[in-house]
């Protein structure tokens, strides 16, 4: 479960939004055996290896998770209209991630101000994450993917990725299927059908006990579980996809100072959306023999009041920060019985117009830009053993206020999470190997190597820390039932 933009902004004073993105985008990763119970089909129908979807999996999702091949409790009218259709098997699943993280070089120990020391290196996550899902049909054309997660960083249970769908399919006069639907969800791109977009992209799992880069685009997980979105989509002939919708802030754990309730949101909340944030998506998929290829575009525009935090309130009026994100994505899949290959990637470009932050000194420039590129290639043999190699890069305009050179923690500046030159640039590689003794149990070893971190390869924080000091080994046991 990702940290919210609000939590992060409390650490990073004025703006926080941009700094938040990658921190907030703590990986979300799910595999849901309740779908298998509901459809009676093996994992391989919908997944190459979880959580990556096959064509059938994408169609299943577009149709609202409702395909059900189990006995139903029913009620009908005299005209055979269905009033109730409840699966006799409740579509519940659990998922656990147990992990161990080892950084190349540990980080300063802030517990004793003034006394030099380092934090213990080697973090066990037991569990890193434990989730409960309701994933499946609710009513004849209404399905849900609903996740509650306990995470060891917050130590609490909270709402995680959620996607409620109404969907139906009609036959056009030429006998081609047209699927149409509505998604009510809490994370832009969580409703998407391809594993190229941020919510379900690679890495599918990553450590939450590492140093994360400062910068990330807004659509790249910055609003995960912090918004409510309503989108409508069309999926024609299982190939051409179009979706439009809008998001609105839906803060978790925020209390109005006046009402004592969950709202109305006021200046004690941070990064509150002004009005609605539009979201759009188009994609085309073509399938032949064992091959599938997809290309698409997606984007959103977020206009935010910086707001504040309890004790540092800032009214929800005046200038806004605007983040306009436009992205491309591509995917190739080969899905055979013996071999599974995926090559995928996305490129997100963000234009920022920071009227609010510039006015308050939260950014040094009135406008900035940021681009993130991720590409990866995955191979599996018989869905049993495989691996992924990926490259990631975030680059953008330098801004010494947005990506500050110092941070005040425990009365001093420990560096590590800063950028000495105000640059957001971070680049590196991820490689992982996975072994699945059974299709719902995955054992992974992942290594992340940084060529550049927060603007530089060496001494990026001005206190002698190099990008490679943040290189990380991550061992993971990940299963779902």
């Amino acid at each position, binding site marked *: 479960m990702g940290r919210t933009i609000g939590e992060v902004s409390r650490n990073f004073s004025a703006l926080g939004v941009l700094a938040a993105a990658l921190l907030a985008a703590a990986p979300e990763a799910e595999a849901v055996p309740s779908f298998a119970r509901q*459809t*009676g*089909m*093996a994992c*391989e*129908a919908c997944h190459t290896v979880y959580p990556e979807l096959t*064509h*059938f999996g994408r*169609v299943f999702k577009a*149709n609202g998770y409702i*395909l*059900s*091949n*189990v*006995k*139903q409790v029913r009620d009908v009218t005299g005209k055979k209209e269905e009033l109730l259709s409840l699966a006799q098997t409740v579509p519940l699943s659990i998922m656990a991630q147990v992990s161990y993280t080892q950084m190349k070089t540990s980080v300063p120990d802030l517990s004793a101000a003034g006394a030099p020391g380092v934090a213990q290196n080697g973090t066990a996550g037991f569990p890193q994450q434990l989730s409960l899902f309701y994933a499946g049909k609710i009513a004849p054309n209404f399905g849900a993917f609903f996740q509650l997660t306990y995470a060891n960083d917050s130590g609490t249970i909270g709402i995680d990725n959620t996607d409620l769908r109404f969907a139906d*399919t009609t*036959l056009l006069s030429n*006998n*081609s*299927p047209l*699927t149409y639907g509505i998604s009510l969800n809490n994370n832009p791109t969580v409703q998407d059908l391809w594993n190229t977009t941020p919510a379900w992209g690679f890495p599918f799992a990553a450590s939450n006990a590492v140093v994360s880069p400062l910068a990330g685009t807004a659509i790249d997980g910055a609003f995960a579980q912090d918004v409510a979105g309503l989108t409508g989509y069309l999926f024609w*002939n*299982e190939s051409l996809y179009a979706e439009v919708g809008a998001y609105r802030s839906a803060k978790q754990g925020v209390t109005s100072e006046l009402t004592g309730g969950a709202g109305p949101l006021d200046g004690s909340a941070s990064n509150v959306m002004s009005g609605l944030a539009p979201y759009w998506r188009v994609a085309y998929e073509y*399938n*032949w*023999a*064992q091959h599938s290829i997809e290309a698409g575009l997606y984007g959103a525009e977020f206009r935010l009041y910086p707001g504040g935090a309890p004790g540092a309130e800032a009214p929800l009026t005046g200038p806004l920060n605007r983040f306009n994100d436009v992205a491309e994505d591509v995917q190739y899949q080969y899905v*055979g*019985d013996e071999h599974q290959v995926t090559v995928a990637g996305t490129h997100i470009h963000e234009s920022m117009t920071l009227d609010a932050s510039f006015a308050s000194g939260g950014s040094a420039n009135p406008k900035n830009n940021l681009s993130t590129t991720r590409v990866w290639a995955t191979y599996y043999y018989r869905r049993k053993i495989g691996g992924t190699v990926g490259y990631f890069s975030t680059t953008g305009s330098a801004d010494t206020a947005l990506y500050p050179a110092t941070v005040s923690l425990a009365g001093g500046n420990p560096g590590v999470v800063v950028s000495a030159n105000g640059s957001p640039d971070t680049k590196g590689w991820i490689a992982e190997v996975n072994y699945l003794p059974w299709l719902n149990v995955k054992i992974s070893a992942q290594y992340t190597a940084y060529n550049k971190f927060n603007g530089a390869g060496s001494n990026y924080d001005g206190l002698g820390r190099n990008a490679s000091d943040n290189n990380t080994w991550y061992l993971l046991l990940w299963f779902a039932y």
Partner: protein
Amino acid sequence: MRNSEMKVDHPVTAGLVKTVLILLGATVLGSAGAAARAEEPDAATKMHAQKVAVTVCGTCHGPQGNSTQPKFPRLAGQNANYLAAQLKAFRSQSRGDPDAIGYMWGMAAELDDDTIAALAAYYAAQKPESGPHADQAAITRGREIYDHGITAEGVPACSSCHGADAHGTQDYPRLAGQHEQYVLKQLGSFQSNMRNVAIMHGVALNLRSPEMQSVAAYLQSQP
């Protein structure tokens, strides 16, 4: 001769005896199947089945049953009785090849007999497309086996049940245009008895891998 259980000394004689037995069995099964022919579904069931076929089955098998993925068999023009029998075998979990277990046991679990009959009728009425032509030498060898069998090894002519044009009969499946990979997997499953059909087990038992490939290549190329 690889079948050590055969007690007849002369390989050709052994092959002939086996072929006759298989054909006899096939005839009996064929007439039994003909007696249990599906009834014509009503209009509403037909419409429902068409929608299910295009929007559910079609994701793998193609909207008109001409799948492009070789993992999933082409169903267009398939014989209705055969299709209905297979759907019922999936439903009762008596057809046990790996993809039947992984995919079709679930998909067919809650189908009623009327829907099965209507789905079978839908696919039987679709126009089949022939598959791509592979290696011509394999096709030629495959045609030879298909038309005449391999007498010395007790492999009967496929055409004796599936028809000279491989369009099958009411009870034996159409094979023309079927994906080479799918046919190969089925022959393998018959051979190993994962798909437990006595007649086809007998046929496939003595087929070597290159012979299976030739037959499959030939069938895929047929209109």
